[in-house]
């Protein structure tokens, strides 16, 4: 049982690091604001979610586990909202979305 938990924690951590890595690559590599907001909100949320899930597992049954779960919920509420806010700001400012063939910005 304990080995399974330990293994799950390692898998979650690895997955979390991987998706955070992908989001960092995306934020650096993608061509414009909107596309970057995609990775910032999505892969990053999943990465953070997996790592916090590992933290939840590590806590087991202590009261902290509720805090960690709450943290998970907040990340899943606030992260997409933040991405939406940034995308909306860009749209309201009139930044044209990049389309295929445009120069990278």
């Amino acid at each position, binding site marked *: 049982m304990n080995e399974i938990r330990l293994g799950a924690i390692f898998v979650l951590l690895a997955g979390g690091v991987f*998706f955070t890595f*992908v989001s960092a*690559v*995306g934020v650096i*590599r*993608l*061509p*414009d604001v*909107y*596309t970057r*907001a*995609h*990775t910032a*909100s*999505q*892969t990053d*949320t*999943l990465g953070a979610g997996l790592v916090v899930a590992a933290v939840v597992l590590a806590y087991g049954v202590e*009261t*902290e586990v*509720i*805090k960690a779960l*709450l943290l998970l919920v907040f990340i*899943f*509420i606030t*992260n*997409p*909202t933040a*991405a*939406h806010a940034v*995308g*909306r700001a*860009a*749209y*309201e*400012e*009139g*930044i*044209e*979305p*990049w*389309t*295929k063939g445009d120069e990278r910005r």
Partner: protein
Amino acid sequence: MADHTHDPPPGGALLVPVGESVTLRQTVAYTMEIAAAEEISEVHFVSPVAWHDVGDVELAVRERTQSLLDRVSVWAEEDAPADAPTIHTAVIGAEEYLFSPDDYADILARYADERGIKRIIVDPEYSPGGNVPLLRPMEVALAVRGFDVIEAPASRPVRRSRLTRPGGIAQFGLLFGISFLFYQLLGGFVIVTGDSFDFFYELITGTITAGLVAGALYTVTLSNRIRLRTLGKQLLRLGLYVPYLVYEIIKSNILITTIILHPKLPIEPRMTRVRSAVWGGPALTTLGNSITLTPGTLTVRTEGQDLYVHSLFQSARDGVADGALERAVRFVFYGRRAAAIPTPRERGDYVELQGPNAESEPDAGAEADVESEPDAETEPVEEEPK
């Protein structure tokens, strides 16, 4: 209704769409002012009512609308000039499927055409179809149909939702409980595990805190509009929805990962617009954030029920157009019966604003109005307020 002719009335006529709104009184006053100044002979106050059956949503609206119209005609008579125009009131659209502002504009236009009315006065705060500010599209839709649309000067350059909504003891109690629990959680539940001093300190400060939080925010976070029993059911269904969402997120994250790490970066980003069949803050937020969380799509802007969705690649766009998330959110908020509706693509509520398909979406019914102003959507708008 049948006693009206198709000829315009001699002195001209005004049509005023009426609904619950904060500036309704001002709109009525303004209408009667115009009517007096230009010696208009007929004023029609018309209230469109959607009569479709959607899950848990309140249906007994006819009586409410009728009493609203009665109130309006009393106000109008108060403000009426000496040679009063005849005041007509009507409830229209009761047998129809009304979702978008365009639908509302349609039935208003039909009503107006039948009576030869050319001028429409709109209440700037009137938002048909729910509590979201939907006015602009309806105004534009009416203007496109060739009407002379006047906005009553109760207008503000900013459309805001109300910060506070009426709430009662149940809302206060619920928020008090949540706040108190969160407070004890932060304190590590020493109220249970600690000594008697801890117990009293945590109890007293927790109660004070929960009281302050609930007192300050119960009308902001919750409201009468959110019925607690419905809320419970919705939370239960939300519990079913979350695993589905997580599955979707992981599935499409793997897809986006291959794309981001692909050396050629094979993306075709495009802006699309979906007129979602959900309304109200919580449902729209759940849908919008779910769309944002599902990789490949990002909710950029909400305007009433319209979601402007930026998507990275074709399969993500298809996902939005096929409306699986929308259906799931309708299930969460309105129950299982409401989940089975046509997809946005079938309804014609899905429009691509960029790319090769931008101008030629052949089978979208309400599209003429949309395409008539495509650059208003993407143009940088820099006007200063008046």
